[in-house]
């Protein structure tokens, strides 16, 4: 009780259905092209309009190619889906940032950077990584397409209230250990279902000290522990990030908003359904070895022995290693890497590009590695160029592509070929996630950069003096 989650949730309850879910008011709905067309189709079939069109923002990101965006999309099926979003937005009177629009990018990168995602809000999107927006101090979670239709039609959703969990990470992160490594560590500790049914509040000194970009990465990956969402109570870091953003409140409205946002914190007497504390000193740069994000190890560690896996999970464990071409108890340092991917809603922000560039500066991309560096939005792209990171990257043999989801999920041209091993800063290492037969190792931008210049899985700390 009296948690920040309770405060935000309770302040959005329109009514409680008897013996059923809560009718929850939604402040912001984001729509991308993949999970929205059937929702718009549903509205048309029912003869309904959008109830609050001004609270809904649309942009394509999954299908968009990361090159030649000024030309029509070559894949006709991708093009049809992207075009359908533009048509639906126009028909229902919604704001739409199409391809090449200066505000286009991955929806979970764009929302925060435009100040569309604000503290205290409820935010949904037909995308499980909507949890990202929790970094702003919002209750944000992914929904299905039927639920997108509900929000389009009523600005509400029916949901049972999740339980609350607080995860505190105390201490100071070591050299080369990032928010991504913290998240990969938490997933390995909790497994991919350990936080199912919960909403997570991230707290502790590590989270307080994190930049907004780091918090966005951490909250982005909440779903990979099974949590519907995760958030960080807003603080001065949040307010400084938001001030002056395109859609953030201005003038008197800003002062009023900040006064309200200051009240958004869990009470000292808050009671969580579950509370976990971790020590930052236990976290080293992390990599995954299997086919779900919870199958991770410290970069210097070995894959677990079969005997350490509970009996019911052994078949899945062995299937996973068979897919990855790895053996139990094997270390992964030194394994040759074919592809490196920097980007996605997880690690496609300016800080991720700064980290990657800082590590590769003065080195050169390994000859047999293909590297895809994909900014999360045009704004990030602009910042990369304004800071001269593009030049550092070019000198090291790397090219910056155009914004989009890219190789995170193989819905556009950027697919990892079958059998190839990729070190990827994205969020999922599921079988075939980056293309049929692709083998994915999830890691931070530093670890991806170290693999890109050495051509093998490498502890990035040796390059960070």
């Amino acid at each position, binding site marked *: 009780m009296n948690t920040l989650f309770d405060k935000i949730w309770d302040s959005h309850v329109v009514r409680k259905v008897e013996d059923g879910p809560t009718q929850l008011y939604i402040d912001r709905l984001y729509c991308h092209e993949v999970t929205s067309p059937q929702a718009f189709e*549903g509205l048309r079939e029912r003869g309904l309009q959008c109830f609050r069109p001004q609270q809904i923002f649309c942009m394509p990101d999954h299908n968009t190619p990361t090159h030649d965006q000024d030309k029509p999309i070559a894949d006709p099926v991708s093009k049809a889906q992207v075009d*359908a979003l533009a048509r639906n937005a126009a028909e229902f009177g919604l704001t739409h940032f199409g391809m090449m629009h200066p505000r286009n990018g991955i929806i979970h990168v764009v929302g925060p950077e435009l100040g569309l995602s604000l503290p205290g809000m409820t935010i949904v999107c037909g995308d499980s990584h909507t949890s990202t927006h929790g970094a702003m101090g919002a209750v944000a979670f992914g929904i299905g*397409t039927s639920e997108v239709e509900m929000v389009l039609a009523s600005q509400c959703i029916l949901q049972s209230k999740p339980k609350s969990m607080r995860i505190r990470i105390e201490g100071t992160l070591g050299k080369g250990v990032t928010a991504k490594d913290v998240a990969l560590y938490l997933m390995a500790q909790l497994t*991919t279902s350990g936080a199912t049914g919960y909403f997570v509040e991230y707290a502790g000194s590590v989270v307080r000290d994190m930049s907004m970009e780091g918090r966005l990465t951490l909250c982005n990956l909440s779903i990979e522990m099974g949590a519907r969402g995760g958030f960080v109570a807003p603080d001065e870091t949040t307010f400084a990030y938001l001030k002056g953003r395109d859609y953030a409140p201005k003038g008197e409205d800003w002062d009023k908003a900040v006064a309200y946002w200051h009240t958004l914190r869990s009470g000292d007497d808050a009671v969580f359904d579950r509370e976990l504390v971790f020590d930052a000193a236990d976290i080293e740069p992390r990599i995954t070895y299997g086919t*779900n994000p919870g199958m991770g190890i410290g970069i210097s560690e070995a894959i677990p022995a079969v005997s350490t896996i509970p009996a*019911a999970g052994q078949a899945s464990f062995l299937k996973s290693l068979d897919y990855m071409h790895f053996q139990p108890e094997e270390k992964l340092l030194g394994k040759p890497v074919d592809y490196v991917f920097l980007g996605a809603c997880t690690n496609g922000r300016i800080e991720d590009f700064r980290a990657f560039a800082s590590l590769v500066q003065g080195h050169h991309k390994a000859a047999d590695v293909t590297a895809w560096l994909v900014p999360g939005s045009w704004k990030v792209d602009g910042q990369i160029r304004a800071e001269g990171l593009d030049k550092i990257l070019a000198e090291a043999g790397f090219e910056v592509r155009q914004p989009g989801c890219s190789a995170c999920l193989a819905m556009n041209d950027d697919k990892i070929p079958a059998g190839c091993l990729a070190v990827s800063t994205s969020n999922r290492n599921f079988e075939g996630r980056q293309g049929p*037969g692709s083998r994915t190792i999830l890691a931070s931008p530093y670890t991806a950069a170290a693999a890109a210049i050495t051509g093998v899985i490498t502890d990035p700390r040796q390059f960070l003096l």
Partner: protein
Amino acid sequence: MKQPFTTLTSTCIPLPLENVDTDQIIPARFMKSTTRDEKFFGDHLFFDWRHRADGTDNPDFVLNDPAFQGSTILVAGKNFGSGSSREHAAWAIAGYGIRIVVSSFFADIHKNNELNNFVLPVVVSETFLSELFASIKADPTTLVTVDLPTQTIINQATGHSETFEINAYKKHCLLNGLDDIDFLTSDKSLIEAYEKERLGVRG
């Protein structure tokens, strides 16, 4: 209005793997459709497990096993439907003809998606689940009955049964073929009143 749900008896498709994610249920490249064509999605259910890399059927995958053709119950290991929120996974399951998924644990976005498509997720104990897998392994014609009104699942091979949970609202919807949008759009004045009240608090 959808097809209401009451009681169903069927053989079961066993999938004794844990953490089956929605990327496996329906790979992303099949999500480019702009219509809710359940047959299309059903045809691509577990596509990359059903097919070998050369595109031919994978005879080792359970959906290609003649013993389980026509089954309307899928039985899966714990944490079924993890990962992506894609409702296409629920459309694929429904489109294939599956009406019930039994597991000891579901990822919650996927569970909601199943319910919103009149596929019933039935949560059973680990013990019930492992016994059911054993029953199906011993005899693929093992029947399971799921009765929504009494919230009961019965393994006909052993006679063992369990009750399962579902909230009263959703149960009513399933039994009567009603969906949430009918409910939410039935009275917008409540939503307008909420908006008006909150403006005063938050600006």
